[in-house]
């Protein structure tokens, strides 16, 4: 039995309105909506679905290919994991979360550029409301202003394209922009880039990230760092590696911006003293890397980076938010030894951090290896050098944090029990189980990378790229 993909948008949106009316049972409606969506996402029909009764180039269509399937599965599972970890914090935002989920599914699935704008605004409004949980209204306001300016830019770019091509449908847009001069496309493509860069956390528009993610709790941190940002990056990938493939000039501008974002993010993370700030700068850096890959056309490695970052940040941001609530401090030196009392969570956090750095036998290694191999196959050496340098910095700050959190005190001394912070449990049982499961997923997909790659791209490639640039399947002897 296969279902219509429009249900992925319609069910959470409908339940969001029901949750507004029945406030008493809204947490059960939230749980129902998220669970139904997380199951349904495996049973949706592939292909292009017209909605609204118009034929496809004239009406709005939903496109479910391998790329958007990977996107919606990731988003819905992450949303489920996020509410399992911190259901108490999520339940009062039930309508907002459901509407946001509908918006994100719509963003990834839609085949129409204006419809994409509408879904991006729905998602953004739900994100603004969630950010108000940080009790820093000035930061939420800042986020709202940056988001609104970005969306005006997006709309301006979209209308300029519409004026040139006469269509809003992504497939037709791809065809018709092929006939246009690069100089004509320069301005609209850059305007659209600015609009999407807000949610994707790329540098010129990433000013909101520090204020919002730096004050996040164990629920909103996960939503911003892994759910919303993955959705935005999937949209970035759809637009810049399929619909508006940037030509040489625009491509160089976008890739440079993305790489600068990567480098600046890693450098700022290295300088930061607070756990959540390190994590948020690391998120900015990973977004930059994924955006650079998407803009170059390496879709499969980019999706691997997005998935790795999403799972890693799910574990790390939920732990960081929870640590801040329990111990009242965010400084990782002040949190020394917190993992000695929470061994399982600590192990999950360690696995996530090492996977983000790209340690062998973890999923992150496969992702990094694919990134490097894609560039080296193409004959580019500058970008891999930047990526490797960033990875060294990344490894340095993550190992610094891990040492502090496991072993307090001075270097070279054995940790004493009394040097650790007090004995407080970070997560509830369900939260611990969810975090452990995510960590097991990272390890398993690291041990069986080709199976994981097949799950992400069943046909071998996404949006017409070559798929895995490198295979880690251990060959049986003499199988040359």
């Amino acid at each position, binding site marked *: 039995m296969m279902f219509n993909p429009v249900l992925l948008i319609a069910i959470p949106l409908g339940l969001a309105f029901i949750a507004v009316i029945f406030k008493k049972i809204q947490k059960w409606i939230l749980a129902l909506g998220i669970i139904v969506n997380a199951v349904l996402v495996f049973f949706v029909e592939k292909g292009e679905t017209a909605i609204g009764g118009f034929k496809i180039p004239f009406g709005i269509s939903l496109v479910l290919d391998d790329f958007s399937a990977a996107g919606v599965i990731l988003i819905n599972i992450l949303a489920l994991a996020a509410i399992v970890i911190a259901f108490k914090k999520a339940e009062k935002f039930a309508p907002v979360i459901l509407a946001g989920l509908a918006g994100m599914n719509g963003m990834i699935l839609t085949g129409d550029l*204006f419809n994409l704008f*509408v879904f991006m*605004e729905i998602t953004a*409004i739900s994100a*603004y*409301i969630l950010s*108000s949980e940080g009790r*820093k*209204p*000035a*930061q*939420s*306001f800042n986020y*709202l*202003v940056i*988001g*609104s*300016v970005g969306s*005006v830019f997006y*709309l*301006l770019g979209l*209308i300029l394209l*519409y*004026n040139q091509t006469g269509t*809003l449908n992504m497939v037709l847009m791809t065809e018709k922009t092929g006939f246009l001069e690069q100089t004509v496309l320069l301005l609209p493509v850059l305007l659209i880039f600015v609009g999407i860069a807000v949610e994707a956390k790329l540098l010129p528009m990433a000013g909101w990230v520090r204020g919002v993610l730096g004050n996040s709790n164990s629920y909103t941190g996960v939503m911003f760092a892994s759910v919303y940002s993955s959705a935005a990056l999937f949209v970035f990938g759809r637009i810049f590696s399929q619909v508006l493939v940037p030509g040489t000039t625009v491509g160089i501008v976008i890739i440079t911006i993305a790489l600068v974002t990567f480098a600046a993010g890693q450098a700022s993370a290295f300088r930061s003293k607070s756990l959540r700030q390190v994590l948020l700068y690391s998120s900015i850096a990973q977004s930059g890397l994924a955006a650079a890959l998407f803009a170059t056309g390496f879709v499969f490695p980019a999706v691997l980076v997005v998935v790795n970052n999403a799972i890693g940040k799910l574990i790390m941001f939920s732990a960081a938010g929870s640590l801040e609530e329990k111990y009242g401090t965010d400084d990782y030196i002040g949190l020394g030894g917190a993992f000695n009392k929470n061994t399982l969570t600590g192990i999950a956090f360690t696995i996530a951090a090492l996977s983000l750095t790209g340690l062998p036998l973890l999923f992150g290694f496969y992702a990094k290896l694919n990134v490097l191999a894609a560039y080296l196959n193409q004959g580019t050496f500058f970008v891999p050098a930047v990526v490797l340098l960033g990875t060294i910095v990344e490894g340095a700050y993550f190992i610094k944090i891990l040492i502090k959190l496991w072993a307090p005190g001075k270097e070279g001394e054995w940790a004493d029990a009394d040097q650790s912070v007090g004995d407080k449990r970070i997560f509830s049982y369900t939260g611990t189980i969810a975090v452990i499961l995510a960590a097991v997923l990272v390890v398993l997909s690291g041990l069986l990378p080709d199976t994981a790659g097949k799950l992400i791209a069943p046909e071998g490639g996404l949006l017409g790229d070559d798929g895995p640039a490198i295979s880690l399947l251990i060959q049986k002897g003499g199988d040359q």
Partner: protein
Amino acid sequence: MIKFASLLLIVIGLYGILSTRNVIKILVGINVMEIGINIFIIAIGFVNGGAAPILSVDNPGSLLKFVDPVAQALVLTSIVIGLGVTALGLVFARKIHKKHGTYDLSEIGGES
């Protein structure tokens, strides 16, 4: 002509957002930008001498030159989204005022 005026409105709105630290004035700037982009979209869809894209007894569809209805549909959506964002922005403005007693972001300081 009106096209350029609307682009100018977007620039004026951007200037308004960047030149002040008062939250209400920033929201006014955002609204000016949104009005600018809305007029720009309608102006892009305009055909000189075109009739309004509404079918009626004295406007039978086959006889007349119409302006682009898609652009108008986009603007209707965009106006409503703009209202939602403005309302949410005013809620944040109220929260800022409640917490800090001022609308001026420069009086609040960086870390709050």
